[in-house]
């Protein structure tokens, strides 16, 4: 039976509200906003910031509206003198201890603390900064920087890391003025189980968590006449970067993005979607081979580097289940510095590969010591020495960093007419676009595997059971009598639910897709800080729209990928693929 609605009075007006809500949510539902710096709906209930105070008739003290459930007959006031004074004092206390570096802070524009202080009309802070404790900044990670001095101890990052990702790399430590969020023994993120997903960074209200900024290095390369700098762009970036330029969430800006990057000075503007199609060829054939040769099943996707590190820490026993395919980012780097360099006669040492990713973990992936396969490929022919060593992918920028560079260059992004990507590594199909949404890699793989196995064209390309924002999605695919059970998980706590069965050899599935971030790459830790709470479904719709608009929608139809096999790789899972496009994983321990 559905519980009946509650009658409450908010600011003197009567409302009927849903039962079971916190006062804060009930107020927001009827259009009254209450400021908060720690609350996240359905997730963080630290009640740490004390900004969301309201007056409830009959209650002695002011109540924190984020943790006080709404009751029938309640009379709530959100804007009294008492409420206003208390909120302001609490906010001023937070500001007193906060560094005044807003002008040069990474989060200057997007800082919630700054915005709330402005909106609440704080123009003067009554309290002097008394604490002189300076915490060291954690720069150990190649993905994420933590500055505890800017932290307001709201606890959102701790909540996300534990509940959404089930990683728990960070927690509070110390007490009083020594309180901070940190890793075990303050050893830094790099020595912890942190998977570099950056979900903490997305929820941080201040500049305490930021990505490792690589824009300076990229500018340097772009201005170096001796370098041939190429860029690859991940699918999810084009569905979100518009938000950085005040365009509404879900704006599709593929062509504008390609043009903006060309204006920045990249020699060639390529597409990670090209190598996403390539990934589907390799991964599709790997799945077929595992099924035919009774290999290790279920096979699990390997595109998401946060997931890979998670498995290496928490599920080392299932590593043989993970596809040996490198991610599209890494396949691109390896192909750009071998096939492309050869075809266009460019010295691979002069090629700089920059990738633009919705992801902070991709920075870590690019710097994995084994990701130097192009170097190994050329080592003998070019007589390369140890000191000549180069990575397949040189620099990784998040969507936000790319947007910063575009702004810095004075490019009026939203007014660009749009241009195409360059050939051949900029050609892609619809199957590659949908990599950006949870379920997309699975759908793209099925489109190809189905046609390779049956030799017949698929009637319906859309697999709706695999779409949407649910944490776990399952589906059974019938390939001419071969019933393939598949599952898709996004968010690592959801992945954990599927992995236990895999570890116990009880998994009913043949193929599992795992994406680290909720929603898949479109919700990645490198994406814009969205003011729109509904940005994810909008970005998702954009991605599927782009797929529908593509003339080719199956990876094995990509003419540039087929040319790559014909001219260079020979065949999927062939000798060259083995060296350039596949990798291995190993057990990790914490602390490292």
């Amino acid at each position, binding site marked *: 039976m559905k519980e009946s609605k509650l009658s409450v009075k908010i600011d003197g007006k009567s409302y009927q509200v849903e039962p079971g809500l916190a006062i804060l949510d009930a107020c927001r539902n009827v259009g009254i906003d209450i400021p908060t710096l720690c609350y996240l709906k359905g997730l963080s209930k630290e009640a740490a910031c004390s900004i969301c105070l309201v007056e409830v008739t009959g209650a002695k003290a002011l109540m924190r509206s984020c943790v006080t459930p709404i009751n029938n007959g309640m009379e709530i006031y959100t804007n009294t003198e008492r409420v206003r004074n208390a909120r302001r004092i609490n906010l001023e206390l937070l500001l007193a201890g906060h560094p005044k570096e807003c002008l040069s802070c990474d989060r200057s524009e997007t800082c919630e603390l700054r915005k709330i202080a402005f909106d609440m009309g704080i123009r003067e802070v009554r309290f002097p900064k008394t604490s002189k404790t300076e915490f060291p900044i954690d720069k150990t990670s190649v993905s994420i920087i933590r500055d505890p001095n800017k932290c307001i101890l709201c606890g959102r990052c701790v909540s996300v890391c*534990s509940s959404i990702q089930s990683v*728990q*790399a*960070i*927690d*509070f*430590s*110390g*007490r009083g003025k*020594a309180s901070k969020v*940190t*890793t*075990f*023994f303050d050893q830094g993120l790099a020595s*912890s*189980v942190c998977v570099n997903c950056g979900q903490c960074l997305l929820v941080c209200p201040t500049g305490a968590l930021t990505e490792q900024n690589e824009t300076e290095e990229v500018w340097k390369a772009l201005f170096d006449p001796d370098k041939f700098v190429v860029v690859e762009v991940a699918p999810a970036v084009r569905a979100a970067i518009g938000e950085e330029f005040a365009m509404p969430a879900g704006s599709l800006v593929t062509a504008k993005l390609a043009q903006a990057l060309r204006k920045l000075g990249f020699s060639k503007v390529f597409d990670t979607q090209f190598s996403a199609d390539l990934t589907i060829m390799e991964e599709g054939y790997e799945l077929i081979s595992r099924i035919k040769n009774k290999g290790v099943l279920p096979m699990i996707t390997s595109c998401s580097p946060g997931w890979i590190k998670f498995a290496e820490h928490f599920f080392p026993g299932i590593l043989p289940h993970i596809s040996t395919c490198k991610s599209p980012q890494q396949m691109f780097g390896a192909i750009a510095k071998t096939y492309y360099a050869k075809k266009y006669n460019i010295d691979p040492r002069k090629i700089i590969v920059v990738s633009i990713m919705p992801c902070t973990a991709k920075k870590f992936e690019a710097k994995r010591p084994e990701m130097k396969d192009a170097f190994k490929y050329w080592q003998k022919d070019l007589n390369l020495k140890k000191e000549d060593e180069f990575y397949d992918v040189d620099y990784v920028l998040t969507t936000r960093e790319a947007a910063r560079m575009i702004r810095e260059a004075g490019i009026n992004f939203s007014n660009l007419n749009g241009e195409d990507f360059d050939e051949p590594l900029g050609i892609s199909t619809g199957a590659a676009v949908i990599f950006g949404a949870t379920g997309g890699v699975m759908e793209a793989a099925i489109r190809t595997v189905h046609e390779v196995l049956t030799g017949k064209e698929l009637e319906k390309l859309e697999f709706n059971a695999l779409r949407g924002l649910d944490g776990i999605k399952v589906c059974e695919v019938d390939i001419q009598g071969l019933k393939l059970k598949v599952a898709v998980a996004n968010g690592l706590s959801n992945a954990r639910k599927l992995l236990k069965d895999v570890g116990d050899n009880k998994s009913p599935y043949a193929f599992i897709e795992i994406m680290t971030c909720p929603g898949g790459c479109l919700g990645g830790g490198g994406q814009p800080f969205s003011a729109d709470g509904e940005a994810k479904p909008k970005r998702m719709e954009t991605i599927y729209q782009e797929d529908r608009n593509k003339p080719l929608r199956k990876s094995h139809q990509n003419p540039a990928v087929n040319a790559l096999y014909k001219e260079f790789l020979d065949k999927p899972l062939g000798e060259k693929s083995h060296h350039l496009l596949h990798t291995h994983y190993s057990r990790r321990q*914490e*602390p490292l």
Partner: protein
Amino acid sequence: MNPELIKLVEEWKGKDGNLIMILHEIQNHHGYVPRELSLELSKMLDIPLARIYEVITFYNFFKLSPPGKHLIRICMGTACYLRGASLILEEMKNILGVQEGQTTKDGLFYLDVVRCLGCCGLAPVLMIDNKVYGKVKKSEIADILSKYIKEE
């Protein structure tokens, strides 16, 4: 890990509050919580390392480093504070080269700050192990410490 501790862990596995109980036992046994034991506990109890570190650093009772041979307690209670205990503490930190809550490099002294040792008439007061030093002057600190150093 000693067998008694393993037994204790087994006993407390899956029960609420198990981490604190076990950490207490480790603290009592070793005088601090050795890092390696935190690593083992994390595996045995399936509790994240960051969480263990949170608990150890939240409660003053738990120490992260081995205790010194001699425990120095400087009183910062009201009476001692008013009679200049902070000068005594500063001098102590300078001579020993440690902050409160730390052990000297040679392992000889552990410096702690406490609130009231119950002899305010002698303020400012400090204790080394079980011996009380009252009406201490900053200039006497070096002398007091040297006795313990000479014993070595």
